[in-house]
């Protein structure tokens, strides 16, 4: 018995290691390539560690690589993305919390119909709304601006954030709202004083999710950003596609890591709250 269970365990770990390698090797490749120079790349040995470690590719990707005509690296795009993602995440989360609270705890006429319509938002493919959205942004004079991108991401995120908060707040006993109303609190005060303070777990989930979605978006970024408001995903695409002479894979790889870094950081630091938040109920017995 002891012997066979040990074998099973060994096989299990072997399989796990194999799958982990399958996932990690591409990332390893990206990392080691980004620290090599072009000469070393040309010699092959893709899997080997750099002979001479250099951050030149990183510096170039950040501030000097050409992305089309301009040669300022990813930096301007990165800042664009930051300017877009922070307000878009915060606004869509707050609106979602508010909607979720209203839909879960205030049974106004048509609440269920509104919620169903909101859920339909999940099933609309991005591509289907590109043209009307572009026209709409035009009417608002927000075409090719970061504000326009924020608006699009907020509008698109509300369906998800609303559902997330509604399902969380549905587990709050309705007596709580009744008690607060008898105590004299109104719609907004009840939200602020009673619902917001118990919402940290679900806010964490919402912010991580929305951050990842909006930061990683390429389609809206490519379609609505013009030349001055492009997010980093579009910047990376342009960087990779702009080649003068030798293809600098090390710069491309460094650019890819720079682009992915914020979402990586968010997951590394927020990951455990993400799981905790998903499983947490609103009110602990």
């Amino acid at each position, binding site marked *: 018995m002891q012997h066979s269970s040990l074998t099973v365990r060994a096989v299990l770990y072997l399989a796990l290691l194999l799958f982990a390698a399958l996932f990690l090797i591409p990332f390893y490749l990206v990392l080691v390539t980004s620290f090599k120079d072009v000469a070393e790349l040309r010699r092959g040995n893709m899997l080997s560690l750099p002979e001479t470690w250099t951050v030149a590719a990183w510096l170039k990707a950040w501030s000097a690589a050409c992305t089309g005509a301009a040669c300022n690296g990813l930096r301007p795009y990165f800042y664009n993305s930051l300017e877009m993602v922070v307000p878009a995440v915060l606004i869509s989360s707050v609106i979602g919390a508010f909607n979720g609270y209203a839909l879960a705890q205030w049974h106004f006429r048509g609440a269920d119909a509104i919620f169903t319509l909101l859920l339909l938002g999940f099933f609309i493919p991005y591509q289907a709304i590109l043209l009307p959205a572009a026209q709409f942004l035009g009417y608002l004079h927000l075409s090719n601006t970061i504000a326009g991108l924020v608006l699009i991401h907020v509008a698109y995120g509300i369906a998800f954030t609303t559902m997330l908060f509604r399902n969380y707040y549905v587990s709050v006993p309705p007596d709580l709202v*009744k*008690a*607060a109303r*008898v*105590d004299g609190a109104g719609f907004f005060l009840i939200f602020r004083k*009673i619902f917001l303070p118990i919402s940290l777990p679900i806010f964490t989930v919402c912010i991580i999710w929305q951050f990842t979605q909006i930061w990683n978006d390429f389609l809206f970024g490519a379609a609505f950003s013009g030349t001055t408001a492009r997010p980093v995903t579009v910047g990376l695409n342009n960087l990779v596609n702009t080649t003068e002479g030798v293809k600098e894979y090390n710069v491309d790889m460094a650019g890819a890591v720079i682009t992915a870094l914020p979402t990586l950081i968010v997951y590394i630091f927020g990951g455990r709250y993400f799981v905790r938040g998903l499983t947490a109920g609103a*009110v602990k017995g």
Partner: protein
Amino acid sequence: MPGLKIRDVYKTFGSNIEVLKGVNLEVEQGQFLILVGNSGCGKSTLLNMIAGLETITRGEIEIGGRVVNDLPPKSRDIAMVFQSYALYPSMTVKENISFGLEIRKVPLAERSTIVARVAEMLQISDLLDRRPRQLSGGQRQRVAMGRALARDPELFLFDEPLSNLDAQLRLEMRAEIKMMHRRLGKTICYVTHDQIEAMTLGDRIAVMKDGVIQHFGSPQELYDSPSTMYVAGFIGSPPMNFISGQLRTAGSGVAIEIDTGLAKSLLKLPFGLTQMQAYIGKNVVLGLRPERITDAMHSSSRFPVQTVEVRVDVVEPTGPDTLITTHLNGKRVVSRIHPGTRPDDASRLSLLFDLSKAVLFDPDKGTRIDAVSAIHQAA
């Protein structure tokens, strides 16, 4: 002055779900009103309407002489205690109690004084900095009461406040609520499904069924003279016995024939022949409380009793007295006898029937047919 007045109140959900069908109630200021009934009878809906948490479809509700139909909960001068306690989870006990005062812009110093006073009254002074999740059920119940007391309202509303407590604690809290009521002298409207709570706490009890008040009166009146079979069966434990049979003339009065399974005998009823003329020869239901059927050792009745020999089906000693189940006219009948009598199962026993408090019901409608004028249904 009326503390609470409910005039012809209706509640309809959607287009055709009628939950309340014309409720009328009035209690004096300082009285303890109980709304009691099984789940779905509309008692909680009525309480929510008094609180202003549900709209009033039709009719009028008055609190302390003021029509409150169009006032929001906060302007009705009420406080409410919930079955689930509904304590704000992120606030400490102190913050929970003073939340309503804070919203009403009561100055901080005054708030602290009130919280301290209320906490002392409820013996929760040492819990003030805890959060609800750190409290036991009984402690949460006290905090919920404290929150209501701090507001010092015209009218207290209780929505089954003791249902989530264990039996021992429920008994203690029941006594405390009664003491609190005597001390504060405020009007209370208290919803429960527990008839013992209703009997022990209430000055006035409204027994509700299917959105209608079946009987509104004092506990003793409901007990002695219930207006319907539903009320008779609801109030009292064990409930009133129902013995169905034909009403007959017996001399100058009336009687009902009963079959004990051993013999048939006539029970003479304390109603006049002229009064009951219309029901002679018809089936009626005789209502009699268990303690009105007893044995020779236990009988303290000042009224004439009639002796009937019955077969004992079940013997249940409760301590102060023993419950005997027997069958009359095929229906289960429970009597309360002296604990020293100790009959065996399936033995024979002579029971003394005291019919001075007997009531008669119409078997189809379930309504009283004797002493119709005494029926005190809310007009």
